């Protein structure tokens, strides 16, 4: 379900930016674009085991993330992540979503 546009770079854990756009239809309705997830930024801050496999399954397309899940404290919105004072909060739409307000009437 989760379609990732950026292919994995050859080698080890260098994933760079990953585009999360499996829910792009719903995103369009909400007036936001796909999420560009900076995996490398997170690599610099955390160990693999901090997120994998507890928070995110490593296999692409198996997580079925949605904003609702984030809001309920899963995935990006886990208790020590973007649902806590340690990271920017979930309402900062533009920090993750591209094309925000593109469809705004």
């Amino acid at each position, binding site marked *: 379900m989760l379609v990732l546009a950026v292919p994995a770079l050859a080698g080890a854990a260098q994933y760079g930016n990953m585009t999360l756009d499996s829910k792009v239809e719903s995103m369009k309705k*909400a007036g*936001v674009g796909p999420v560009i997830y900076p995996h490398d930024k997170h690599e610099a801050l955390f160990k693999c085991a901090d997120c994998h496999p507890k928070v995110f399954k490593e296999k692409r397309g198996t997580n079925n993330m949605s*904003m609702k899940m984030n*809001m309920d404290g899963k995935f990006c919105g886990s208790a020590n992540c973007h649902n806590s004072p340690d990271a920017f*909060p979930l*309402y900062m*739409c533009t920090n993750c979503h591209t094309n925000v307000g593109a469809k705004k009437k």
Partner: protein
Amino acid sequence: MKASSFRKLKAALLCSLVVAFGYTVSGSVAEAVQAQPTAKPPAKKEAPAKIDPNDPASLIYLDTAGKPAGVGGTAAAPASQAFKAGMGWHPQALAGTGLPKDRYGLVDWAKLVRENIIKPKASLDPDEEEMPPLKMDVLIPAKGDFVNDVIYPHEMHTYWLKCEVCHPQIFVPAKGSNNMTMVGIVQGEWCGRCHGKIAFPLTDCNRCHSSPKAKK
């Protein structure tokens, strides 16, 4: 016999003289010792004895930067009327009131109203009629397919606010005619006019996004 009694009398006299002299000397010394500390304490009292900004009972004045500016008088003899005002409403006093807090440590004003903990006057004008809260929930569908819809409670908002505070400048009073977006709200439009400023912040998504969508 006579001589010995005279000698005794002489000894007693001498002894009493020594005692009397010693008393006067030691008394004056003791006075001198006592006089020194009584002269010093006022200077010591001027320095703040103990200022604990986290102690709601500590009598402190905060400057505009929120730092302790010094102590005033005592509770029995306040330095000024500002002392009384300061005792009534400052963050430290607020922390000591035991008002209910939400999970972000902010005062939960809605809970205060629901549990009748405070009863503010409707208006400063005694002649003004109090409008009862409007019991009307509005379902605001979230635009995406996944995020919970919002149930907007007029009741809690009209407890604090008049209709004119929000209508028609901020919200057109017709269902579906306000094209609200979360981005706009974050940037201070619609709900963001108050929430995140004087009302609870946007951090807790599910406090508003509370009505699950029918499963897709």
